[in-house]
C-alpha cells in the first residue's frame, strides 16, 4: 500500500470566506471535507469538488481545490463525466438535500447503481435553504414551511435506505456538530473504492427551526461505539431505518465491489485525458473499408 502523506487542513483554505449564515451547519461540513482531503493526502491540484446549486452547493467556492459549481441537481452527472475523463482526480461531490434527493435524485440512483468511484457529501438540512425555506424531500411529515403552511403531508425520503438498495458501496451518516467523526467518515469515503454517500445533518439555522443542533445532539449516537458491523446488507437496511429517539451516526454499510471504472475497457489504457487523441492511420483505413 502506498503510504499516504497527510496534508494540513490549511492547505485547502479557499480564496474567499463562506457567506453562509453564522451558525449554518455547512461550515462544519466544509471544515470536515478539508480535514478529510488532508487525511487522504489529496493534493489540491488533484481534488475536484463538484456541486449543484443551493447554499450547500456554494462549497466549492470556499475550498482550495478545482471545482465545478454546476446546475441545480446536475452535480452527479457533471462529476461522472469529469471523473471518467480523468480518473486520476479525486472527485468529491457536495450539495444539499434538495439538489441531490429532489431534482437530482434520478442521477444519484444511477451513479450508485454504477458504483462509480466518487464521494458524495449531502448537507441534509431538510429544507430548501437558498430559496428561503420551502419543504425538501427529507422534510419531516407535518412540518410547516413556506410551501407547506398547513404542514407537509408527504413522507420524507430515507437517503440511507435508498443508497444501500441502489448499490452504493459506502453509506454513512454524519453530523456537522460532530466534526471529528464527520472528517473521518468523509476520509473513509474518499479512501473507499466505489460510490460513497455521506448524508450529513447540517442544520439550517435560518429556515429549519425543528431539526436544530440541540434536536440532533439529544438523539444521535455513534455506531462505532456500539460495535456495529457495517458489512451486513440486511442489518444495514434495518439500521438505516432507525429514527426517533435514537439516530445512528457512522458507517451504516460498506462493501467491496467492482467499480464502473474497473469495467470500462477504454480506461484500462489510463485516464482518457492522458491518452493520445485521434486514431492511427491503419484504424482509420479499417473504418473506411468496413463501409465498402
Amino acid at each position, binding site marked *: 500500500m502506498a503510504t499516504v502523506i497527510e496534508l494540513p487542513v490549511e492547505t485547502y483554505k479557499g*480564496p*474567499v470566506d463562506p*457567506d453562509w449564515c453564522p451558525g449554518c451547519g455547512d461550515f462544519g461540513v466544509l471544515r470536515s471535507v478539508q480535514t478529510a482531503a488532508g487525511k487522504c493526502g489529496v493534493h*489540491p*491540484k*488533484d481534488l*475536484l469538488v*463538484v456541486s449543484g*446549486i443551493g447554499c450547500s452547493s456554494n462549497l*466549492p*467556492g470556499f475550498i*482550495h*481545490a*478545482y*471545482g*465545478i*459549481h*454546476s*446546475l441545480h*441537481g*446536475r452535480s*452527479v*452527472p*457533471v*462529476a*461522472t*463525466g*469529469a*471523473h*471518467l*475523463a*480523468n480518473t*486520476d*482526480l479525486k472527485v468529491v461531490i457536495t450539495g444539499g438535500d434538495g439538489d441531490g434527493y429532489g431534482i437530482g435524485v*434520478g*442521477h444519484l*440512483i*444511477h451513479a450508485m447503481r454504477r458504483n462509480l468511484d466518487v464521494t458524495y457529501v449531502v448537507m441534509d438540512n431538510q429544507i430548501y435553504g437558498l430559496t428561503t425555506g420551502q419543504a425538501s424531500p427529507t422534510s419531516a411529515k407535518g412540518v410547516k414551511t413556506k410551501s407547506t403552511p398547513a404542514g407537509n403531508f408527504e413522507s420524507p425520503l430515507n437517503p440511507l435506505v435508498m443508497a444501500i438498495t441502489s448499490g452504493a458501496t459506502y453509506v454513512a451518516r454524519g453530523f456537522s456538530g460532530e466534526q471529528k467523526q464527520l472528517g473521518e467518515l468523509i476520509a473513509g469515503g474518499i479512501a473507499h473504492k466505489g460510490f460513497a454517500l455521506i448524508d450529513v445533518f447540517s442544520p439550517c439555522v435560518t429556515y429549519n427551526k425543528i431539526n436544530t443542533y440541540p434536536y440532533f445532539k439529544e438523539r444521535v449516537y455513534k455506531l462505532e461505539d456500539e460495535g456495529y458491523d457495517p458489512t451486513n446488507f440486511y442489518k444495514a437496511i434495518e439500521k438505516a431505518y432507525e429514527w426517533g429517539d435514537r439516530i445512528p451516526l457512522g458507517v451504516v454499510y460498506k462493501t467491496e465491489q467492482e467499480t464502473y471504472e474497473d469495467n*470500462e*475497457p*477504454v*480506461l484500462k*489504457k489510463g485516464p*482518457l*485525458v492522458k*491518452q493520445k*487523441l*485521434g*486514431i492511427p*492511420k491503419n*484504424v*482509420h*483505413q*479499417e*473504418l*473506411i*473499408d468496413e*463501409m*465498402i
Partner: protein
Amino acid sequence: MPSDAVYLIDPSHCGFRGSKRAVEGVRMQEVTIGIAGAAGDGLDKSGDTLAKTCGRLGLHVYAYNSYQSIIRGGHIWLRVRIGDKKVLNHGDNLNAVICLNQDSLERHAPEVNEGGVIIFNSDKLKLDPTLVPKGVQALGLPMKEICKEVEAEHGALQPIMQNTVAVGAVLALAKLGLEEASSVMADTFAHKGDKVINLNVSLLKVGYEYAEKNAKAITKDWSFSKKRRPFVTGNEAIAFGAVAAGCKFYSAYPMTPASTILHWMAAHAQQVDVCVKQCEDELSVINMAIGAGIAGVRSMCGTAGGGFALMTEAIGMAGIMEVPVVCVEVQRGGPSTGLPTKTEQGDLFQVYGASQGEFPKIIVAPRSVADAYDTTVNVFNLADKYQLPVMIISDLLLSEHPETVDPEAFYSDIKIDRGQVVTEWAESKGKFKRFQFTESGISPRALPGTENCNFVSATDDHDEESILISDMFTCEPIRRKISEKRFRKMDNLLKEIPAPKLEGPADADVTLVCWGSTSGVVEEAAEILTAAGVKTNFLVLKWIVPFHAKEVQEILSKAKKKISVEVNFTSQMARYIKMETGVSMDGHVNRYDGEPLEPKEVAGRVQDILKGKKLDLDVSEEDAKQIAYHYLRTHYAEKLRPTKVVQESANGHGEPVWSIELTERATGKHGGKMKVGVHTGATYSFEKEPVEAK
C-alpha cells in the same frame, strides 16, 4: 434552352406532393430501385447488398428508407437511386420495385415509370393488371420452382431469402452483373462460413438468370469505373469524424434518429478508444459531456429534438463556464414525440434559443454525408479554440440515409488544435485567472490536475478569477466586461468560418435558399429548373451561429427572386435570415408530412410560385387513397383496399368529399365506402358493409 423544355415539370401541377410524372434525368444515367414490404422483412439488407455492389462498381448511390416506429409489420419503403455521377438525393423516379407483400404491391406498382419493372413473388402475391402502368413489365418470380435446385442442396429456404432472389433479378435488369454482388455476399456472410455464402450467391444467380430470360433490361450499359466508395450514413460520418478528431467521450440516451451515433460509437469503442456512456436521461447526457470537457477530453453527445429540450439548461452552463463540448441534435418530425421516424427541419429555433441568457455558441448544419464528417472534424477545433458549446444540427434524412462517398472525403490528415491550454504555471506568476479579460476574448484554460491553477467553473457569473459576482460581491462593471469578453470571441470566430456562397449560374432568375439535407434536393431542383429555361442558383446556409449577416444580405438583396425551401411548416430559416438581414423571401416551399422533398417536386413548386399559382392544399385523389389505406390498416387489418375514388358535392358535410370505394382483397367484391373531406381531410363516414348484403 427551348421554351418547350418546360415540359420537364408537369405544368398542371400545384399540389402538395409534387409531380408523379416521369421525366428524363438531367444529371446522369440513373436508375432507381424501390423495395417495399413490412418491417422485419429484411429489406434493408437487400438494399445494402444492392448499394454496396454499386459502390464497388464505381457507381454512385443515395438510399432512403421510409420506415415507421415499429419493429415488425408496418410499411417500409426503401429507395436506392443509382447513377454514374454523384447522386444528390433519393430522387423522384422509380424504375424497378421489389414488393414483398400484397399491400406494397398494390401501393407501389402504379408508381413505376415507363420502361420499368415490378418484381414480386408470384407464388404468394397477385398483381392486379389494372395497377400496372403502361409500358411497365410485371416480373412474377415463381419462387418454389426456380429455387428447387438450391433447396435440394441447402434445405428449405426461409421466407427472407426470397429477397435475395429478387435482388438477383434486379442486378440482371439494372445491368449490374453478378460478380460484385457475389463479393459483397462473401464479405457480408464471411462470419457465417462458406455454406451460407454459397447459398446466397446461388439465390442471386437464380433470380439473375430468371430475369435475364423473362424480362427486358431497364437501363443501358453502364461504364464502371470500379472506384470503390464506402456507403455511409450521416450519423456514421458524424461519429467517424468525431473520433478522427480526437473525441474520447460520447454520451447519449437512445432516441431516433440520433441512436445510430451511439451504436456506431459503442461498436467501435475499443477500436478507437472512446469512452461511451449510455446515461439515465438527456440531462445526464449533456452534463456528463460537459464534465468530461472541463476535465480536458474532447467530448460529444447526441440526441433528437425531445432529448435536446431536456439538455437546454446545460447548454447555457457550457456557455457561461466556457467549456468546449459538441452536441448533435438530429431533427425528426415534431412537436413533442411527433413523428419519431420521419424527417423534418423544425428545430432550428429550439437549438437557436436553447438555454436562458446570452452566450457565445456555434450552431452548424452540415449539408451532406461528406460534409457531416468534415464539419464534425472541424468543430472540435473550434470548440477548443473558442471554448464554447457547439451544436451540430442535423436532420433524419441526413443522419440516417446512406450514400456512397468518395473515400478521400474521410481524410485522416487532421490537425488537432486544442486552443490555449496552460500546462504549467509557476506560483511566482501570481494567481492563475481562468477567465482573464483578453483582447481576443479567449482566456487560456487549465485542466484540473494542473499545479497552481486551481479555479472553480461556476454557473453563477464570475470575475476573472472565477469568483462569483452573483450576490455577495456583485459588481456591475465586471459583469459588463465579462459579457463583452465572452462575446468578443464571436468576432474572430466569424472571420474563421467560411461565408456562404451562391452556387449555380450567377445571373439567375431565381435563388433558392436552403439548409441541411434539403441542399441535395435543391441542387438538383436548380439544375432541373435551369434546364427547363428558368435559370436558378441556390444558397446553402451552413453556419447559423455565428452568422455572416452582411454577406447573406448582399447576396440576397441582389437576387431577382428568392424562395426558401425547407422541410417544415413555418420556414424557420427564412425567418432567421429576415431577422439577421432584414431580407424577406418572395416565396416558400415547405413540406411537413414527414417525407423529404424531392427535386422535381421542388422545381414544380418553384415554377408555381413564379407563375403566381397558389399552392393547392386540398386532399388529392391520391391523398384520399392514402387516407383510406391508413384507416383500413388500423381498423380492418388490410382486409379491404380502396379502389375507385370519386369527388362528390358537400351533401351536408360543409365541403366537397372524396367518396372512396372499398373492395375486399380476397374476393374483389364491394366491401364498404368511405367519405373524406376535400379541404379538411375529415372522415365523414366509414362503413364496412357485409359482402353478403350487396
